């Protein structure tokens, strides 16, 4: 009886181990940036104050989960003129849609330490699929380093008179470096 109990306990522990994908929260020093071409020059900006939680086990990426909240009212290009326009009604409409979210569950292993998250971006009230490809650097403070391409017009960012992609391109490159620490 005792043996059997131990065996059951041991088995269930062993079986449940792979499901213990580690949960992480964002650590200081992380960044989320965007970039595009404007009048022949690259413009770039950042989203200060974004928050990431990840559940990830490199051995079982399919069980991974990612959740990011992105305040858009503080998005900045370091140029006041651009920022006012970008946060305004024609672009992020931060007064109405204060934050964007990105959620994904189940990552694909692309090999060579690369993974892909086929997640959903909710931006300006529109939900559309966006794929994030990332590398994972394990350690006590793992680093998730990822890239995605967001087609701004899919989300109505700069629609109407700003829809002309000759002025502002449709495809905006998003890049992120998230340092992680075990979640409490």
């Amino acid at each position, binding site marked *: 009886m005792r043996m059997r109990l131990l065996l059951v306990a041991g088995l269930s522990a062993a079986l449940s181990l792979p499901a213990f994908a580690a949960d992480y929260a964002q650590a200081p020093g992380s960044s989320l940036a965007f970039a595009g071409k404007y009048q*022949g020059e690259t413009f770039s900006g950042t989203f200060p104050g974004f928050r990431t939680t990840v559940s990830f086990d490199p051995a079982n990426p399919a069980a991974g989960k990612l959740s990011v909240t992105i305040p858009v009212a503080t998005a900045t290009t370091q140029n006041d003129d651009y920022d006012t326009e970008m946060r305004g009604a024609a672009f992020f409409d931060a007064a109405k849609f204060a934050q964007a979210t990105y959620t994904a569950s189940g990552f694909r292993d692309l090999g060579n330490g690369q993974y892909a998250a086929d997640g959903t971006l909710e931006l300006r009230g529109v939900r559309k699929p966006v794929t994030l490809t990332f590398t994972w650097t394990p350690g006590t403070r793992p680093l998730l380093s990822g890239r995605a391409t967001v087609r701004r017009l899919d989300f109505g960012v700069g629609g109407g*008179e700003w829809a*002309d992609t000759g002025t502002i391109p449709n495809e905006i490159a998003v890049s992120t470096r998230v340092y992680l620490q075990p979640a409490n």
Partner: protein
Amino acid sequence: MTLKNTATRWGGVSQVLHWLVVLLILATGAMGLVMGDMRNSPTKIEIYALHKSLGLTILALATLRFAWRLHAGAPVPPPGTPRWQDRIASLTHWLLYGLLFAMPLSGWMFNSAAGYPLQWFKLVNLPALTARDAELRLLAGSVHAWLFWLLVAVALLHAAAALYHHVFLRDDTLARMLPRGWLRAGASSTPPQD
């Protein structure tokens, strides 16, 4: 028409450069006056881009004009011009040359300090003259505006003097900056000798 300047006439090169720059200044200045107050829009961006492209063109032409002026010289003043008038005319001309450089350069400085891209007709990007700097941006912006009004004043003086010569003194001061036969210099003017 001869290309080089003679003692009595401006040659073709000087004439073309002079009037081309006049047209460019009028267009660039008109845009500069209206674009600042425009509502933010792609049209506003286009107008700014065109203003900058034309300004850079003026800067390039000013360099050419300056080099050509040093190389080809200028006609002598019409006979009988008082010395003080000749002095003022010369001063005005050199001030105008200075402004042809200072206007685009102060605009370029403003653009650089503000951190905007600088593109010539969507073809070539030009480097920033300085890093982003809020104070310098304000300074360069007001210098650009004040130089513009100085340019307006000096150019009006220059044009008024040319008209005065043509209408009242009836000499060929204005006619010699135009292709032969476009303007009849007044009766008292000496007939062309070349």
